């Protein structure tokens, strides 16, 4: 081989090599990524196949990998096999009402905390942070004793208030972040035009903070939707019990109807996953805002 040809011969294969290496890296990342995704979906995939398993194939020893046919009617049967519908209604009532309460108290508070500095401001921020850090689990005995004293055991109201009280911090962080990012001049201009503080908030600030409101709403709703410990402690009847507690009721029994348990679970999981993905962008800032502020 002649010396003069060497440089040329070197460049093009090495460039191709680099490109190949890049492609190989991308390929490896994709394969790893999909393997990771599969790992995270596995329990839910199993849930799905179990939910679609016909009655007579449910209790195979050892288990079958997949059902021989998919029994879609399980999803219909589950509605008829009472109390599931009732549980679902209870969950919707509790989660919606808790969300409304959170918005009602956190919008004005977040607005004031974002816009004004006053003497007790830090103390209040600290209190809000405490509600986020002290999950209801560690206080469940105190919550129970309080609700006994108030005569609120086994009522929607107790669950609504507990969910609202413990999960309002996220809303306060997210909303005050949004409110603070709106230039004060915008509001000032409206005030000069004769708007009161309340109507400025209502007509200008809130519409501009719509993504924050949506994020708060979805997050509070889902957290209340998934809440378990307090509901387990405070509910004793089917009329009040939410889905999370209702499902565990099926499990202790002699023969668990797993396909119905999981059909119900999927009905509960799918909508919240979609909602959660919708607010993904804001989640971390709301959950860790107490530290960043």
């Amino acid at each position, binding site marked *: 081989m002649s010396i003069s040809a060497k440089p040329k011969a070197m460049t093009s294969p090495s460039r191709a090599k680099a490109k190949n290496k890049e492609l190989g890296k*991308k390929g490896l990342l994709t394969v790893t990524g*999909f393997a*990771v995704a599969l790992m*995270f979906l596995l*329990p839910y995939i199993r*849930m799905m196949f179990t939910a679609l398993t016909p009655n007579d194939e449910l209790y195979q*020893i050892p*288990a079958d*990998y997949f059902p021989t046919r998919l029994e879609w009617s399980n999803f219909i049967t589950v509605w008829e096999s009472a109390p599931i519908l009732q549980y679902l209604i209870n969950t919707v009532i509790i989660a919606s009402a808790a969300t409304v309460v959170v918005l*009602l108290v*956190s919008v*004005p*508070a977040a607005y004031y*905390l974002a*816009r*004004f500095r*006053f003497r007790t401001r830090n103390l*209040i921020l*600290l209190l*809000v*942070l405490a*509600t986020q*850090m002290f*999950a209801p689990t*560690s206080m*469940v*005995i*105190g*919550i129970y*004793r*309080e609700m*006994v004293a108030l005569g609120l055991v086994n009522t929607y109201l107790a669950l609504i*208030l507990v969910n*609202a*009280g*413990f999960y*309002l911090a996220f809303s306060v962080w997210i909303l005050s972040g949004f409110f*603070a990012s709106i*230039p004060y001049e915008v509001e000032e201009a409206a005030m000069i035009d004769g708007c009161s*503080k*309340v109507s400025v908030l209502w007509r200008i600030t809130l519409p501009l903070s719509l993504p924050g409101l949506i994020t708060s709403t979805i997050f509070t709703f889902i957290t209340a939707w*998934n809440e*378990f*410990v307090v509901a387990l*402690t405070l509910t004793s009847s089917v009329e009040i019990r939410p*889905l999370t507690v209702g*499902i*565990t009721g099926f499990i202790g029994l002699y023969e668990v109807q797993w396909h119905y348990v999981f059909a119900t*679970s999927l009905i*509960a*999981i799918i909508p*919240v*996953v979609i909602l*959660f993905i919708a607010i*993904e962008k804001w*989640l971390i800032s709301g*959950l860790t805002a*107490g*530290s*960043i502020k």
Partner: protein
Amino acid sequence: MTTNTVAPPSRRRKKSLIQRFLAGPLPWITPMLILILAIVLWPVYEMGRTSVLEISGSGVTKGFAGLENYRELFDNPNLLGAISRTFFWVVTVVAITIFISLFLAQLLNAKFPGRRFVRYALIVPWAASVIMTATSFRWMLDGYYGILNRILLDLGLVEEAIDWMGSAETSLPWLIIVAVFVSLPFTTFVILAGLQTVPGEVYEAAKVDGASARKTYFSITFPLLKTSLFIATVINLINVFNQFPIIWVMTGGGPGYTTDTTTTLMYKLAFRSQEIGQSAALSVVNFGIILIFVLIYIRATGFGKKED
């Protein structure tokens, strides 16, 4: 959030009493304060009070008990096991979670086709109710009908089906795996958020200087992740310490009390053994432990110091 917009002092004009009231913090903050007071602070008081009361199994208060409940609690034969298990449980779950999350965050920070799908898949265990996730694991691990035994039998890894939840030796590792599984999404996303704050030029400069990928990671990326890692660690410590649904659904703390943590023991004392006083005493202890974590968190993040 660095905006420091402060309302200019309102011009002294004659305002009605209502207007002046509406301009102050009270009407804006009070509803939230009432809710926090009634729902978060009152239970703390109730816990403390109940822990020094003598309460019958049916819930009737018989009188002041002093520290009797605490003495009974510390004499409880299941307490020591639960405490050491809780320590092991929290440290193991959080350490494994952080370790794996560092890799996952790195993966999700890289560009590759299908990354969005992987991110969404990671959100599923986060959004789904932990109770339902744990229930699915329990079903997969079922001694008779579980898919795991089938897989292990087919692979020839076990001779006969294993009753995974039948004893603490086999169930505890699974409880830890499931706890890690549900903690990974949040932790990964916190670290990912940290990674995305590292400016791209820093990496460019390192590349120009000929630093290896490994060196770049340990001397540039990792130090910049300190804050995110700290936040993720403390929040996870609290969450895992408080973790109740996984243990409750998969083993119920059993057999006996062999997989109980202080959190599940607290619950069982109150609602299984009807020992409300002892349970309240334990919850005061638990609350104290979380308070320490929270104080560390608040101190280290300099809460309030950056305020004007």
